[in-house]
């Protein structure tokens, strides 16, 4: 088990390194000149040359990459400017360290992701299980039509619509704003409720469909028949022998979805105007703020990779056959 964990972690580090190299290459090979971006409009050629030297842009690409990696693990300096560990550079727009920008935006993204995840797991899995056990009935059809609707409606539509109806027309909720849970729990809940619901709607549909098909498949397994042959109560047969194996694939996609969401819910945050990591990314793309784009990409990738490691470990806990691999 320890060896299994260690292997997964080493693998994750390798993947992150590759992602790092790829994103670095993409962004620094782009035609847009980072020195121009850092300097802003109306810049003298001397100033650009100076910035180029400070950012190390006159160095060959591998040297720049090495300096970038070094910055992440140990911090670095740009000329006289100190950039502490873990250094992802400075924003061209705000001159704020990218790492600080990311971490200050993280709580909002975590609030959105965690609440939405809880909601869609609850709703999606319950609907899937009910649909599977009541297969072919009105319940099954209603759940699957609702799921299809949830999957099909794009967030920018549901988000705008919910905001228009619930805030503007009915006035039941205030406009979502950045509120810390510790400062004002009620305000936090009110601000988060719409983002949670719109995100959860999308994912719950997918989860309901997956859960339904997995439960149905498991109900037909031989070991479920064995459990019935033993005379176990039907509730135990379902819970212990049909549902537990059915949840394995759900664990897999849940880990990845949650990991991806922690790296920012770009559309949701943008529509509701919530300053999370996704909003940071959207703003950075709009203003061609390369260090921030690069930072967000790595940050989000790290979450996905770590979520995958977590999924592997949970898998080993849930499935005895995986442990020996």
């Amino acid at each position, binding site marked *: 088990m320890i060896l299994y964990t260690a292997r997964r972690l080493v693998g994750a580090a390798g993947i992150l390194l590759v992602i790092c190299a790829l994103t670095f290459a993409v962004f620094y090979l782009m035609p847009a000149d980072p020195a121009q971006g850092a300097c802003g409009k109306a810049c003298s050629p001397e100033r650009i040359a100076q910035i180029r030297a400070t950012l190390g842009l006159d160095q060959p690409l591998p040297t720049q990459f090495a300096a970038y990696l070094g910055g992440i693990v140990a911090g670095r300096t740009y000329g006289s400017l100190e950039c502490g560990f873990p250094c992802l550079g400075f924003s061209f727009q705000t001159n704020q360290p990218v790492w600080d920008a990311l971490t200050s935006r993280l709580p909002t993204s975590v609030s959105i992701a965690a609440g939405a995840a809880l909601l869609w797991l609850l709703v999606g899995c319950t609907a899937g299980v009910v649909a599977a056990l009541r297969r072919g009935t009105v319940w099954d059809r209603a759940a699957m039509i609702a799921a299809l609707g949830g999957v099909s409606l794009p967030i920018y539509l549901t988000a705008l619509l919910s905001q228009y109806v619930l805030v503007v027309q009915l006035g039941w909720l205030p406009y979502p704003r950045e509120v810390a849970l510790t400062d004002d729990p009620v305000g936090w809940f009110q601000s988060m409720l719409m983002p949670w619901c719109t995100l959860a709607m999308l994912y719950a549909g997918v989860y309901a469909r997956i859960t339904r098909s997995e439960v149905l498949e498991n109900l037909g397994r031989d070991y479920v*028949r064995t459990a019935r042959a033993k*005379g*176990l*109560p039907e509730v135990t047969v379902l819970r*212990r022998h049909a549902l537990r194996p059915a949840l394995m694939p759900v664990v897999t996609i849940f880990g990845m979805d949650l990991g991806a969401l922690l790296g920012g819910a770009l559309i949701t945050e943008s529509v509701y105007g919530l300053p999370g990591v996704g909003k940071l990314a959207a703003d950075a793309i709009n203003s061609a703020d390369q260090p921030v784009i690069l930072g967000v990409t790595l940050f989000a990738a790290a979450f996905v990779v770590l979520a995958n490691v977590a999924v592997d470990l949970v898998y080993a806990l849930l499935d*005895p056959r995986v442990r020996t691999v």
Partner: protein
Amino acid sequence: MSLLSVRGLTVDFPSGVRAVDGLDLDVEAGRVLGVVGESGSGKSVTSLAVLGLLRNARVSGEIRFAGQDLLSLGPKAMRALRGDRMAMVFQDPLSCLNPYYPVAFQIAEAYRAHRRASRKAAHALAVSMLERVGIPEARRRARSYPHEFSGGMRQRVMIAMALCLEPDLLVADEPTTALDVTVQAQVLDLLRDLRERSGTAIMLITHDMGVVAGLADDVVVMHGGKRVEAGPVREVFHSPVTAYTRGLLDCVPRVDGPLPHRLPTVEVP
């Protein structure tokens, strides 16, 4: 009176297939009934019907077990009988054991479904059952998972699970088919031994004439969902009445007697 008495059993599936058609058979207490026939003759469906494990099928006729009419029993009463007074061993022990739980847990679970017992007591019983069916180092192996056992060991686990409540009737559906020949012999020895010690009646579903000859007292030959022939094994094997049974027996290669040029196939009457 027979322990299990089946009269006019008919099983229809929604697809329109009639898998069993007016079948009669009897299993006497403490005896072994072999049910033989080719694939699709309705053997397995019959066994599932007896335990009430058929879903989406229309079962009619009469199944009497220890004087009770099983087809008129509610699901709760059937559940109380299943696993306790009649138990089942299936063909493929790998797919029939749940891969997520240790083997002892799956045996203890069967016990606890019918008797009040602490987890610890049930686990101890499971270990003793594993010892009884010949699992070496049962105490240690009890916590292993099905994938850590060999095929023969898994079938022993299934048998231990079926016998932990000392049922009156054991329904064994092709218990040796998924196993290789040497292991088949071991599992048959085990069944024979258990039957002699506990007096459990066995309904043995198989297409293997050798298995019937080695273990069964009586035999029912099935074809197309119907009973073709029935009687004590000795009589049926030595002087089969119907052409179908004779054809079925001719398909079995013999180690004694002359070798035929080519094994015959069953002629459908």
